[in-house]
């Protein structure tokens, strides 16, 4: 087996090929030159690679490769209906569908939209339950636009999925995407005018992940803290009071088997978006977020780096590998669950996303 890292950058897609030790890496790319790759992922169901690709002149598309990046085909149909009054501004995140739906994919985009494809990514239909959500007039774009960046499927229940939109909040569907319930109870939105408690929607989720071994557990790195939910998003507990230098950040990764272990990369704050304390610091919790400790051996210091919302990932090996891409163009890998880091690639264009997959 081998490990493949897909690094989406502002100037194309790069692939890093490593063995199971994950200490030596070969760089391939750039692929899809001319495109900004907001996110790329290998679909473990059939080995296809999908890339959410954007060009400032030619717009947003999804590219698919069936030969690990040698050749690509572009989605044929992707856009918003004229009656919506909206146009697709960017393609943000591709998520392969449930195992029971092998041709289905999901795509998140700006302005706060979700698409579904049932033909392997050629034609995409906007999901009406998100496009016409009754709270949409209370959603507000952030610095990255009104981006639907997180799509998480419940591996045990094909009816249930989650999306997160900045700044609209997190939403859950229990009927395969037909209807969507805001799940933001207890999540702060300090940037909104003072009101009696957190609002129903409008939270700025930076990244949302579901733990595959315990799918009722969700984690989110939010504009206003790190949170965990153990009841499918119905309630959230804020976690950044013990050991994290800041609750603000973007990157989030989960241990593939241990639901209490998570990794974040805090930043100074919303008005100074650089890594905290002048170092590229990954922080790890092993107790569900009750406490955090620095896991940065091998990461640069001093450093004022930035890790974007798609910039962290984990693999499913033992020990688990944790991956980190920076806007400075580096890919860092920890083959030891955060105990030590190596720089697998440097001087790439700004890294927008990191995903990892196993290949034969």
């Amino acid at each position, binding site marked *: 087996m081998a490990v493949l890292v897909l690094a989406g950058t502002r100037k194309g897609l790069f692939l890093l090929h490593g063995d199971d030790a994950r200490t030596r890496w070969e760089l391939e790319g750039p692929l899809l030159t001319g495109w900004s790759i907001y996110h790329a992922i290998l679909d473990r169901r059939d080995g296809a690679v999908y890339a959410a690709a954007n060009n400032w002149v*030619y717009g947003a598309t999804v590219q698919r490769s069936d030969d690990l990046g040698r050749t690509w085909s572009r989605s044929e149909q992707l856009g918003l209906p004229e009656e919506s009054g909206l146009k697709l501004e960017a393609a943000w995140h591709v998520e392969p569908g449930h195992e029971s739906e092998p041709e289905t994919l999901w795509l998140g985009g700006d302005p706060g939209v979700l698409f579904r494809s049932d033909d392997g990514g050629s034609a995409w239909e906007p999901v009406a339950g998100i496009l016409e959500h009754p709270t949409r007039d209370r959603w507000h774009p952030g610095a990255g636009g009104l981006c639907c960046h997180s799509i998480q499927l419940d591996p045990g229940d094909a009816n249930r999925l989650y999306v997160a939109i900045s700044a609209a909040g997190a939403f859950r569907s229990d009927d395969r995407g037909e209807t969507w319930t805001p799940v933001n109870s207890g999540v702060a939105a300090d940037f909104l005018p003072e009101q009696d408690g957190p609002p129903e929607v409008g939270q700025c989720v930076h990244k949302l992940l579901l733990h595959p071994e315990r799918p009722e557990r969700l984690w989110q790195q939010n504009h206003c803290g790190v949170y965990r939910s153990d009841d499918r998003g119905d309630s959230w507990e804020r976690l950044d009071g013990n050991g994290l230098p800041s609750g603000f950040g973007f990157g989030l990764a989960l241990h593939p088997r241990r639901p209490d272990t998570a990794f974040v990369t805090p930043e100074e704050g919303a008005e100074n978006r650089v890594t905290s304390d002048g170092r590229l610091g990954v922080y790890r919790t092993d107790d569900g977020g009750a406490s955090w400790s620095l896991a940065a051996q091998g990461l640069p210091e001093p450093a004022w780096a930035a890790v974007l919302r798609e910039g962290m990932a984990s693999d499913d090996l033992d020990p688990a590998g944790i991956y980190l891409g920076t806007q400075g163009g580096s890919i860092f890998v920890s083959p030891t669950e955060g105990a030590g880091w190596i720089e697998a690639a440097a001087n790439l264009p700004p890294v927008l996303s990191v995903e990892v997959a196993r290949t034969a």
Partner: protein
Amino acid sequence: MVTVLLPSLLAHESGGRNRFELEAATVGEALRALPIRNLIFDEHDDLRRLVNVYVEGVDMRDRGGLEGRLAAGETIRIVAAVAGG
């Protein structure tokens, strides 16, 4: 017959072809016949804002826009606006 010339990214997305010879009466008809139509027009069939089109070296806006008539043998060139970083 008219000729349409594509910039490199659009040529790549057209399977490597940077030149198309088409039968088209108007600029819009020629552009909509291209295999990269959905890259130069958005989902509401509006030409994307940063796509510039020249007919015989003249900005199509000065020749009637997408409805501008074409004469046999004319050449259309698609140029990405100077933008980005």
